[in-house]
């Protein structure tokens, strides 16, 4: 029995279809991340699960129970909002206790749960402060604490880290992972940051324009993206996509050609797309492709050069020993088997074989 089950869910706002027929299941205890660009419908989907919006079609079940007609209060979910939504006129302790107080829990239980959550999140010294006297990270933890004390069946997170600075974000990511391990609860997490998706999730669901593109473990999506969108969404800088024509045993692109991979099989068309991640394309003097360096990003350990080639803009990696400058004419060569092949409509045909899983 899955923790959350969405079947055929549809939602339209003002004639604009925000969710177009989504089927998704979250397993109990799983950390499922819904990721995608702005406007893809992930937040709406989360709110549909929470009950803050009603679906136009389809069914939503939580813990095997159909909840489409139930208000949020009866769905046994807890939500952590992007802007924390802490009650400004209550202290941290009162914020944490609010949900329990509403459900008329005995005072002793409330106190116990509140202090347990506070300890878990290191909020104990802050219990009597008001939200306005807390820092961003502290507020975030109070918002999480408010969800934790409820001990719900499902936790819902709506981009909880987007209001924090990078260092804090990294720290909180770790804490979220730790929390998940400790509680073992089902968590559905919405974000637009693919790093969070990759690092936190048991499974990732990628959305684009109201449709789910692919769902699976993060590395599966990374190494074997189902379509061009997923391929370009995960990984930064995003995968280089180059149009080619299949000519016999060769895939010929503008200014380069590669042999056809053995396992490509017959495709319906000769016009294909080749995808190579910048991390697997090394700068060298001569290589499969060549071009002029337009921009450079040095990241310390290595860096990325953005080349202008006859086939278009290509990003490639160079190690810290290489001296590459803007304006240099360099070549780029894939490392090992690094070629993804896609049909023109974006569907994946072939992925590189991995040496080890």
């Amino acid at each position: 029995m899955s923790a959350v089950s969405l079947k055929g869910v549809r939602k339209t706002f003002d004639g604009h279809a925000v969710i177009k027929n989504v089927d998704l299941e979250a397993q109990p205890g799983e950390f499922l991340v819904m990721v995608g660009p702005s406007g893809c419908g992930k937040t709406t989907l989360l709110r549909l699960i929470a009950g803050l919006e009603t679906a136009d079609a389809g069914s939503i079940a939580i813990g095997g129970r159909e909840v489409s007609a139930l208000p949020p209060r009866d769905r046994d979910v807890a939500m952590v909002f992007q802007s924390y939504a802490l009650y400004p006129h209550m202290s941290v302790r009162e914020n944490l206790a609010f949900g329990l107080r509403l459900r008329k829990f005995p005072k002793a239980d409330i106190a116990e749960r509140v202090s347990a959550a506070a300890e878990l999140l290191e909020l104990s010294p802050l219990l009597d402060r008001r939200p306005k006297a807390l820092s961003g990270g502290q507020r975030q933890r109070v918002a999480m604490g408010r969800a934790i004390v409820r001990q719900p069946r499902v936790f819902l997170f709506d981009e909880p880290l987007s209001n924090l600075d990078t260092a804090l974000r990294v720290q909180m990511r770790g804490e979220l992972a730790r929390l998940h391990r400790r509680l073992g609860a089902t968590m559905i997490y919405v974000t637009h940051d693919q790093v969070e998706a990759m690092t936190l999730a048991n499974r990732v669901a990628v959305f684009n324009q109201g449709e789910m593109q692919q769902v699976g473990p993060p590395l599966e999506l990374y190494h074997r993206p189902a379509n061009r969108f997923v391929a370009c969404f995960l990984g930064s800088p995003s995968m280089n996509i180059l149009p080619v024509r299949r000519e016999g045993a060769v895939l010929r692109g503008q200014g380069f050609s590669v042999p056809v991979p053995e396992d490509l099989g017959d495709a319906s068309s000769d016009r294909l797309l080749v995808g190579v991640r910048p991390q697997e394309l090394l700068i060298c003097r001569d290589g499969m492709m060549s071009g002029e360096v337009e921009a450079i990003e040095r990241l310390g350990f290595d860096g990325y050069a953005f080349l202008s080639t006859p086939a278009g803009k290509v990003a490639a990696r160079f190690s810290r020993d290489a001296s590459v400058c803007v304006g240099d004419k360099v070549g780029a060569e894939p490392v090992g088997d690094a070629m993804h092949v896609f049909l023109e409509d974006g569907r994946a045909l072939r992925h590189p074989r991995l040496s080890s899983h």
Partner: protein
Amino acid sequence: MNAIASLVVFASCLLATGAQAASPLKLWHAYRGAEEQALEKSTKLFERETGRAVELLALPYDAFAAKLIAAIPHGVGPDVFIFAHERVRQFARMGIVDPVDGAIDRRAYFPNTVDALVVDGKMYGYPLSLKCIALYVNSRLVSRIPETTDEWRAMLARMSSPKENRFGLAYESGDFYFHAPFLFGFKGALFDESGRAIFDTPEMAVSLAFVKRLQDERLIPEEASGALVKTLFNDGRAAMVISGPWFSGEIAKSVPFAVFPLPRVSETGLPMRPFLGVEAALVSARSTDREAARKLAKFLSTGEASVVRAVSAGHVPADRAAYDHRAVREDKLVAAFRRAAENALPMPNTLEMARVWEPMKLALQGALKGGVPPSGAGALADRRYRALYRPKPERASGVPYVVLAGLAAALGLYRARREVLSPELFSKRYPDAARAARYVAPAAAGIFVLVFIPFVYGAGLSFFHHDSGLYTFVGLGNFVDILASRGYRINEPLSFYFTLAVTMLWTAANVVLHVVIGLSLALILRDPLLKLKGFYRVVLIVPWAVPNYITALIWKGMFHRQFGAVNGLLQALHLEPISWFTQFSTAFAANLVTNTWLGFPFMMVVCLGALQSIPAELYEAAEVDGATSWQKFRNITLPLLRPTLLPAVILGSVWTFNMFNIIYLVSGGEPGGATDILVSESYRWAFQRNEQYGFAAAYSVLIFLVLLTWSSFTKRLTRGAQDASS
């Protein structure tokens, strides 16, 4: 040289003629309607004859005397004013008018009009006309004229029909001016031998009982105002009216009427004797052009002006020569009133007379509306009279106060000695002081003149007692009188504590209702599913947008005992109509309803704004947390509304505390001053009870102290609320 000389001469000629032409004579009066028009015609005649312009100013009657007393001694009053004779003695004593002997021919006027204007042998004005009330009858409905009250009562019984709301007689029964003929007809007297006013007499009781019986038998309407009387007569629903010459101008053209003297009282055989009023043109003692002013006054009182007034306004001229004109001689109205005036009693021009009105109003109200037995009403008036005209407090020495003020100033200087002795410290702490002062100066000047100075003046006034222009220093005497409730018990309406309690009850009830209704409406208007929100918002603001005195008068009309909409509704629901202004609870409720209707839009708008500032996410979080609508309201809406509601409530409470308009216009303080709040009570002391300015000023200072205490208390509340919210 020649050119300059001629230029100077030319300029000075211009100035001279300019001065001559530039200052019209100022004439103040309290006329309306046909009387006002007649006066304008007369002054135009004067302008044509003498070439001197006359500037007229009409004032409401209530405040006329007070304005004259305030303006003339400071030289900013009129040159001539028209006033009834009864205040002449007071005006003379205050130096507001000068004797006109030497510029007047006493024989030109009727003797009793001359007598009315004589004080200590000197004549103080030019008599214009006689006034007294008489009996108007609708000639179509009335064929015979009653000679005695028994006849009269029989006729009235035949002509009245309560079902059709028709009355035999209509007149302003609550006004003593109209009740006086009954009193004097029953052989009653207003003053004892020493000249002091007396009310608790058997004749007073009998006269009140007589009128009460007329009312109980539905022969006369209840709560009759001037407007009601006019409407009833013009609609043909009142066959007879008791009123004065001014009424003729208000009668519709379609109603044929005639005027007769009032009947004789059957029980005593005496005629009903109305007050005789003499209207006079009085010359201000401070007029800059005394001679021209006297000329104007004399002109108005004789000759063509007199005829104009007689013919157009129905005035009965006081000068004999007017009756040589055929128009006047044959004017039926003038003749009728002259006949009625034969029985009239000149209203005494003593100070005591002016003190009679308020106590008698109380007595009439009590007997006719309030269920006080006629025998007790006189005593009621007596008590009120005694309370209002307390002996003045003892003159106090100013020395202790000056010493105290000096000590306070010294203490203040001592505390500020650092800044005073070392100016560098001040400029170091406030380096921009000079520049800041320049920015603040205009507003500070405005506030200084408009707020600070009147405040200090008023506070200073509270240490004095005022009596006909004489100010005596009484120190804290006024305050002691008020706070010790001297002259009346604590739970009587005149007592400061009673009024304070009423005011606090008034404020609390209003604020609670305003907030509850305003908040409820704001919550309803916030609902996203509600259509036509814009329309509702506009409609609900309308009560606030209408000027509140219009609202007050409309509501007052709706609460009228016989003709009001509210009682009409009650009757339609088969409930007993309520006499709204005879009991404290219902009069208070009437005021409350009116002010709530006026006040809830403000709270609604404030709440709407505040509600919009609560982030929707908090409600979503609460929903997920498990809150029902009520729980959301109690735990999120209310606490987050507090920071905005609190200032609004404080503001609203201060405004309501001083809400003069509603109290004065709707209930008028009825019954017997019980629904008066502190500010309207203070007004009455100043303007309706013989200008007891010092007493009223002391009241105002006390109001200020009460509100000051309230503000400091609420400041602490606001600070607490600020700490509690984000």
